[in-house]
């Protein structure tokens, strides 16, 4: 199932299928290692609900929800209850 990154819940994993947005944002994503095929796991959500903390290529990256909406992912696992 394909979703936008901001729609993933905590502990859900996805594989990047596409990135959108302004050139500058795309470039930033690329620099940080978000390209097609990269695996992303949503680790945490900030106490106020935004931004989110994701794990990618073995490190943690935070981004705002309105930035995460520009990344579409193929969901890899079902939502886990915590």
């Amino acid at each position, binding site marked *: 199932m394909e979703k936008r990154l901001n729609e993933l819940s905590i502990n859900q994993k996805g594989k990047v299928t596409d990135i959108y947005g302004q050139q500058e944002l795309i470039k930033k994503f690329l620099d940080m290692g978000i390209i097609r095929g990269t695996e992303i796991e949503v680790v945490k959500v900030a106490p106020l609900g935004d931004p989110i*903390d994701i794990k990618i290529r073995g490190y943690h990256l935070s*981004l705002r929800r309105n930035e995460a909406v520009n990344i579409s992912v193929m969901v890899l696992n079902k939502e886990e209850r915590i």
Partner: protein
Amino acid sequence: MKKIKINVALAGNPNSGKSTIFNNITGARQHVGNYPGVTVEKKEGKVDFKGYELNIIDLPGTYGLSAYSEDEVVARDFIIKEKPDVIVHIVDSSNLERNLYLGTQLMELDIPLVFVMNMSDMAEKNRQFIDYKKLSDLLGTAVIPTVGNKNLGTDKILDTIVKIYEGKMKIKMVEVDYGSEINEEIIKITSIIKREKDLISLYPLNWLVIKVLENDPEVMSIVNSYATASEVIAQKDKSRQHLYLHFGDNIETIIADRRYGFVSGACLECLKITVEERHNLSDRIDKVILNRVLGLPIFAMVMYLIFKFTFTFSEPMVGWFESFFELLSSLAVKYIPDGLVQSFVVDGLIGGVGGVLGFFPLVLFMFFAIAFFEDSGYMARAAFVMDRIMSKFGLHGKSFLPMMISTNGCAVPGIMATRTLSNKRDRLITMMVTPFMICGAKLPIFALFIGAFFSAEYGADIMFIMYILSVIIAFVSAWVLKKLVFQGETSHFVMELPPYRLPSFTGLLLKMWERGRLYLKKAGTIIVVISIMIWAGFTFPIKEAPDSLTDEAAASFQIEESYAGRIGKFIESVVRPIGMDWRGGVALIAGVAAKEVVVSTLGTIYSLGEVDAEAPDSLKEVLQKDKFWNPLKAVAFLMFSLIYLPCFVAMAVFYRESGSSIKWTFFLIFWTSVMAWGAAFIVYQGGTLLGIGV
């Protein structure tokens, strides 16, 4: 004999331990400055090694080398224009993939490149084992494992640099293979650009071509000034179109994909991960620190700690400076005869230098505290916790700290604290609104007027409302600036949350000292000069007061006749609509020297002689009895004091921190004046209309 100089640039991702390596190499022989015209810090240091003098430049930490952020432009411009002899790429070994991505771009710059695998112990601890020999073969250059915080491998880095410089170590850089489709287009563009002999003597050819293909705005503007520009652009557009049709994706993405492909390939061969740890120590700490319930209270606590540390612990040092300058003043009064020279030395010179040094301990202590939380990895988390609120107003999660340091504290270290922000827009907006907070020096003005015109039971409430107002004004102001002034300039929050680390004490001390020194050197000189100018404005022209006047009345007479007094009278028509006469105007002008001076100047104007800003009881009574003032005018005056120009020390620091931008400094002056006048106007005229407080 003069030593041969080798220029070395340190490049690397943020949080790769680059600064630690830099400190290890240069020790105390380093200094921090600013790159001209930008807000980016420039760190340079020297070390003597095997008969050479190595000049080390610590480039800003970046993840890539595109033209979108100031940091990246500074880093790549330095490499391309200054052409260092060797580039040292500092890599966080425990995060090989993303770090080496920068390396693939450094490889294209035609300068000998050395890879330093820093924090190699951390990698092993995480059960990631790197085959350095194999990696070195794959990359075609030296690969040196180091442990920065234990100072392991530092000599090996220096040794390698010298060997490469002497030609004793041959390196044969590999290049990323972009695939035949892209390579064909690269060849086409190369054949055109090659004809521009001047151009390719200035820039590495390979790099130029790839940047043209990527449609890099900076490189395109360089290419544009050459004869073949139209040909290059035509070919570029054709190539991009062709590749887009072929790959169904834009070329930047494909190039990044190839680079990551190269890195992944290298990692696959050289990196063995035995057990992938699900939750390391950092993750477990974050479970608490970023916890939904505990996250905000912990944030508040850390902010409080930084504030407390900055202002409480620096107090004794501030006290020493104060007593020292008081002693100097009393000596000057004793040994220099009464008159102009004495006044110049005491009020102009000692006042100015004392003013600079008075803030110095604050700057030092604050940078120590900030450096601690920055290096430990918490600052990124603090931004993560606060960003939701701040971003609504065009600010960044990290904007909170400068504003908080300013509240009840001081805008000078507050403005300097914006150094934690890396995006230029975020940084300028934060710098612009930080002075709106009620700093410690504004408190005496509030105490005086609230004490004089309101009964004690409402005093605290009014003070509280003022605090709330200052926050609202700062936030609304940030929002307006975002919408009007910085329209179209974006900022993002794509930010690494680095693993927690224990900061090194020497690293913290160096950071503190270098930034403190920067304050003294850069802002200090401006501050002394302006302090003398303000002194002159209140002292000249010297008018002989009639003999009938008492000393206090003579002082008041002198202010009225001085240039500052004349300006006050001149602007009376401007301040009348906000409920002030020339006396208020002059006091506010004097307040630009330091906000608490508003109180002492009012004292002098009302012929009270020296009034203690901390306990102005006599002044309170005079204001109460003066028919001119009423509670409404007092509130309008407070509104104006709350918002108008920051003191000139803060303005000097603003000027320096904005990249020595006269434009932005004047904008700050304009912005705060207009806002202050508008707010006071609304209060005074609105109150008069409604008949409140008159």
